């Protein structure tokens, strides 16, 4: 099993979610995050006052999936989140040791 963690632009969330739904991913965790990478923060000048936007708002998605499905999910997110611009985000894939469903105690892929 793997955990796929994707940082995407906020306005792409709906598209990504729909695309994932279509390939059968029903569950995910979503967090509002802020950060910066190559798309650096920027400075806005407005009427003499300066607003420094040093961390840019993004959405973080976390999805746990069986290993066989990882490539499909990653590709799905990549396509849906792509606007061909800097700041479109990144996808990380981590190994997951165990998944346990709290209510039933089921383990492994059954619990996903």
């Amino acid at each position, binding site marked *: 099993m793997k955990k796929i963690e994707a940082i995407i*632009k*906020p*306005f792409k969330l*709906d598209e990504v979610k729909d695309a994932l739904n279509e390939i059968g991913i029903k569950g995910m965790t979503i967090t*509002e*995050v*802020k950060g910066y990478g190559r798309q650096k923060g*920027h400075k*806005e*000048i*407005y*009427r003499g*006052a300066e*607003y420094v*936007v040093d*961390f*840019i*708002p993004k959405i973080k998605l976390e999805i746990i999936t069986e290993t066989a499905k990882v490539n499909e999910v990653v590709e799905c997110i990549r396509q849906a989140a792509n*606007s061909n*611009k800097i700041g479109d985000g990144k996808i990380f894939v981590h190994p997951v040791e165990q998944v346990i469903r709290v209510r039933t105690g089921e383990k492994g892929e059954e619990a996903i």
Partner: protein
Amino acid sequence: MAAGLQTRRNALRLLWEKGLAGRSLLRENTRIVDSQLAHWFTGCPDTTGMALVALGGYGRQELFPFSDIDLLLLYEEGAEERLDSLIEAVLYPLWNAGLEVGHSVRTVQQCLEDGAEDFFFQVALVDARLIVGSQTLFNTLQNRCRKVLVDGKRFDFLNKMSTQRKERIDRFGVHGFLLEPNIKEGRGGLRDIQTLSWTAKVILGMQQLSFLENTGILTIAEYYTFDRAAEHLVRIRNRLHYTCGRKNDQLFFEHQEEIAKALGHQSDGAMLAVERFMQDLYESMQTIAITTDLFLEHLHEISAVSAPGNAPQEKTDIEAGIEIRAGRIHLHDSTLLQKKPHMMMRAFTHAAKKDRELHYRTKKLIAANLHLINDRARKSRRMAKAFFEFLTAIRPDSVLLESLLETGLLTAYIPEFVPIESLAQHDIYHVYTVDRHLIQTVNELQDLARSSHRHIAVSDPRILFLSGLLHDIGKGTGSGHSQRGARLAKNVTARLGMPRRAAEDVAFLIKNHLFLSHIAQRRDLEDETMIMACAQKIKSRDRLKMLYLLTIADAKATGPTVWSQWKSTLLDQLYLKISHVIERPDLDTFQPDFPQATTWMRDKVQGLLEDAGLSFETRLLPDDYLLSFGPGEIVDHIRIRLKLAPGALHLEHKRDSAHWSILLVSTDRPGLLARICGVLALNNLQVLAAQIFTWDDGTVVDSIDVCPMLTHGYAEQDWQALEEDLRRAQETMEVFEHRLQKRIEPYEKKRPHGEHRSGVEVKIDNRTSEKYTIIEIYSTDRIGLLYDMAKTFADLGIPIYRAKIGSKADQVVDVFYVLDQNGAKLTDQPLLERIHSALARIAAS
């Protein structure tokens, strides 16, 4: 034994299921526990000098199904050694039965000492009731308590009680109108009723609240409303305890649905059963909160009057019929109201301006005179004036808006408010009911306005605050509340006599109050076209500011989870982006539907070309060019272009109503725009507006609006010379420059020397457009300015692809879309600095 108690409690539940409800159930529960305790007590061998005393809610005979049983084992000095057997006989079985017991073992003296030290215990003693045991001992406790803890300290008790209530409400929610209210500790909860009952007992010596109606504080009708509300709350708490199967006083969403159904509330298209149920609950809690406020305020007033050494209250007249006394606003002449109903609103206006509260008698007076707010009063200019003064003057933390709502004056004055009064919103975002949310929004707006947030000042605060107060007024009747709210608001603004523009702004703000937050979170903020479309929709900077502030206030007033730093960053970005473009001169003509419109234009032009038997690649025409002219004009340009010899220049001029316009078609070369501008200056023509385009094949199409600097007519203008100059200017730059300088000098001298040019600004923007670096120059207009700027670009080797020249009065805004020689945006920092300083110098000279 314990099993016996359990059986009895099961019997209680059965009684409840059969319909024993409210306070009757509490009394029955009390009776059951009483008789069991008495049974155990009398079973003890020797209980002389001992008594079992019920405290707290149990003492008041208000024992809820799962509440703690507060017990005091009272004993005489010397009875210590016999206590063990009593404890064994009474407390052990209670514990075994799994009941929550709060117990203490004390002598009378210990009670007095602890009561003096611990206010909570003192309050618990107020409700002390003998269950079984020595009556003499219990009487001693009562008498000693009165002498030691109460006599001469009554107002001390009142102050402590009020402070405690305030702390409690702060902790459990200032608004009883939180969507998951605590029906015991929250404002208007059962604890408020107890507060009332304790103070009535200690200060007025009243054993029952029903005596309240004799004190003149409440009318009989008011007392019955209060009593019904209290009963209502008790019923809900009983059910909540049974629903949860334990002691719980917070009404979570899941319980709300269940209880609403159990109480027989029905859903319909507009409102859920649970929303109706909650609306009723809020009304009861509201009644209790107001009654408690009023009662405590009354007692404080008495205490202030009767306190020794108090000077007679100072009073100041503010206007006829309204005075300020002891820090409260009073409407002291009720006879005036008949003729001048707007005085009720004036009282609020004064309160807001002086940051005071209204005296409770004034609030009652207003509540009793609402019938005077008729159609005429609702359309009265004086009333509207007072209302707006009030609305714009209240402090962010003021309770006055709530008072306006609680007295009923707000709904009487703006009847559109009626359907949303105490209306719950059954979702996870909203924390307040709609009416409280609207009030909170105004408070947040006041807070934003005073914190000079983002240096935003709006031209007419009345529009902003009224929109804040009304923005959700369309709720409660199904979806589409923004639209409906805007419609309702039109009636309101018409009655209030707002000017048409202001009324339109209010309707716009209400209709679009979710627009910015929606866009900020769901649209690509890098999308220039989308930003332009937003700007076109919003239209003016003032509206944008108000919409921005309303968006923030609305979110903050919705609940603690709604507004976050994250969302704020997105909204700020959107706001700044729109604000950069909202005053662009081409805002109205900009086509938001970019790809579709350009495709359509290309097809149209292609068709016309074929009809005319011409052939030209329309893909060479840039998008923004296509959207700036009509298809016929474009075909004309192509025709000119096809006939144009390499390096030649075509000039057309014509007279429009207000100005003259010049069309220039040529092939691009460095410095072309500079020369054109120079020649125009040389020929005494001032540039009003210009659109400069470069096709992908290097053809330049310039459309320039000019007017003469010297007063002469169109016919007198020497167009021949102009064309000649243009041709010559192509050849030798030096000669041309020399002539131009001579032309400009006389004007230069006319200007007072050393005059400081203000308002000069040069902005280099690499973000707004995806393809170009945009350079904007704001400055005061002068002859040759455009030439100097265009020449600067030419000297630095920077081609200009588009230019827009606009002027307002003597202020010009020149916008240049440029790229470097390789066709990329200008990113080289030293170069950008050189451009900036050169342009700034020219603009300021």
